[in-house]
């Protein structure tokens, strides 16, 4: 019953989100489109404070170990399980983007890691060369030609764009896994996914530290890193970002 309701809810929500995601389109040639910077900065600070409170991460590098911590088995397992739980979403978006090759690769990966890999605790598919290709509804909206929209810092979830934020909502409504699970199982998968996010955050602390947290303007650095990395993930051409430092010599 609840699932029928969810399905019926989905289409109008989807339509509204697609429309809303194009609310503040990024003009051509503008690399950073951030009309809500004041609000975004406030959320960014709040998220950092939350992170400091929740994560076992030393605030400055001096307190961290000289060498990066070895890949911790628990952390790796959590990241793998969380990625495995997300794989059905990837497949849905692969299909929505008319990329059957990726859909098949991800579906195979999910089948192998869920069974032989004991629910994703292990990664036998990766060893077979199926490294998995993450996908999401934000990328689907991009494939459908929706504009990136304004840059947004979401509470808890962090850097995003209007398009990606809309995508996140749709992904959570469209998850095929949810239709196969009961409420308790859904809660458990949600918790596992969040744990996976925390594990992921700790895993990349050695990059986030020097690139963002210790920089002169962490907000601006996080924004640039998110936008450039996200556009790379979406396969947007990078020519417009090409910098020729020798050009000045001829001015």
């Amino acid at each position, binding site marked *: 019953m609840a699932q029928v309701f969810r399905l019926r809810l989905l289409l109008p929500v989807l339509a509204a989100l697609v429309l809303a995601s194009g609310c503040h389109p990024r003009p051509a040639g503008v690399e950073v489109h951030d009309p809500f910077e004041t609000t975004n900065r406030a959320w960014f600070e709040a998220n950092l404070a939350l992170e400091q409170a929740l994560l076992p991460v030393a605030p400055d590098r001096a307190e961290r170990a000289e060498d990066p911590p070895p890949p911790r088995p628990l952390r790796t397992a959590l990241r793998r399980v969380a990625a495995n739980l997300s794989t059905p979403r990837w497949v849905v978006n692969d299909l929505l983007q008319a990329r059957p090759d990726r859909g098949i690769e991800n579906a195979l990966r999910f089948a192998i890691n869920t069974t032989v890999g004991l629910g994703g605790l292990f990664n036998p598919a990766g*060893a077979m060369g199926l490294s998995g*290709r993450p996908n999401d509804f934000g990328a689907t909206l991009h494939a459908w030609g929706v504009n990136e929209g304004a840059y947004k810092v979401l509470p808890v979830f962090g850097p995003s764009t209007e398009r990606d934020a809309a995508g996140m909502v749709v992904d959570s409504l469209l998850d095929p896994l949810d239709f196969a699970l009961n409420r308790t199982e859904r809660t458990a998968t949600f918790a596992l996914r969040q744990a996976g996010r925390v594990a992921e955050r700790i895993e990349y602390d*050695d990059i986030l530290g020097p690139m963002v947290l210790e920089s002169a303007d962490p907000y601006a650095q996080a924004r640039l890193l998110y936008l450039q990395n996200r556009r790379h993930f979406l396969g947007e051409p990078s*020519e417009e970002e*090409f910098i020729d*430092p*020798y050009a*000045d010599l*001829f001015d």
Partner: protein
Amino acid sequence: MTLMPISSIDRRRFLIAGGAAALGLLAARPGLALSQADARALIGRVMGDVQRIINSGQPEAAMLREFEALFSRFGDVPTIARSALGPPARNASPAQLAAFTEAFRGYLARKYGRQFRRFAGASAQVTGARQIQRHWEVITTMTMRGEPPFEVRWHVSDMSGRNLFFNLIIEGVNLLAVERQEIGAMLERRRGNLDPMIQDLRRAG
């Protein structure tokens, strides 16, 4: 978005430069004397060195010194530094510019050398190259078993008189764009005063 608008502007500039060279106003510096093979070979050596350093098992300080030497040997650090500093470079004295370049060299090695360390044990190879304006972009891929491949693009030029890289794009993140923003923010924090900013830079990264 194609290359056209950028390259047409550039071509004009290039023709002017070429005309000047023909008149003997500029040292003869033919465009793209650097071949694709040279550019690939250079980055192949860089990647070989990166792998040797990260797999050497030496302590971090020694590793970062090696990265600094690698940046000096294969990278056009003075040009990267000048570009990161942006317009304030024009008002800087030669001594300030030299001090900034030295501080920036160490900062680059610390900040980016550390990032390469996570690829200890990965296999790395040059997977492609393409021309962008008068330069080459060499694409390298690092693969760790079971993980999606990781891409680093190197921008290579002989405009300095030697074949050197002048930018790298790590999974889409443009080093020069990041450092222009970061150096700008550091300078702003010191109200535009270069000398205290150079002091900050020596400790950063």
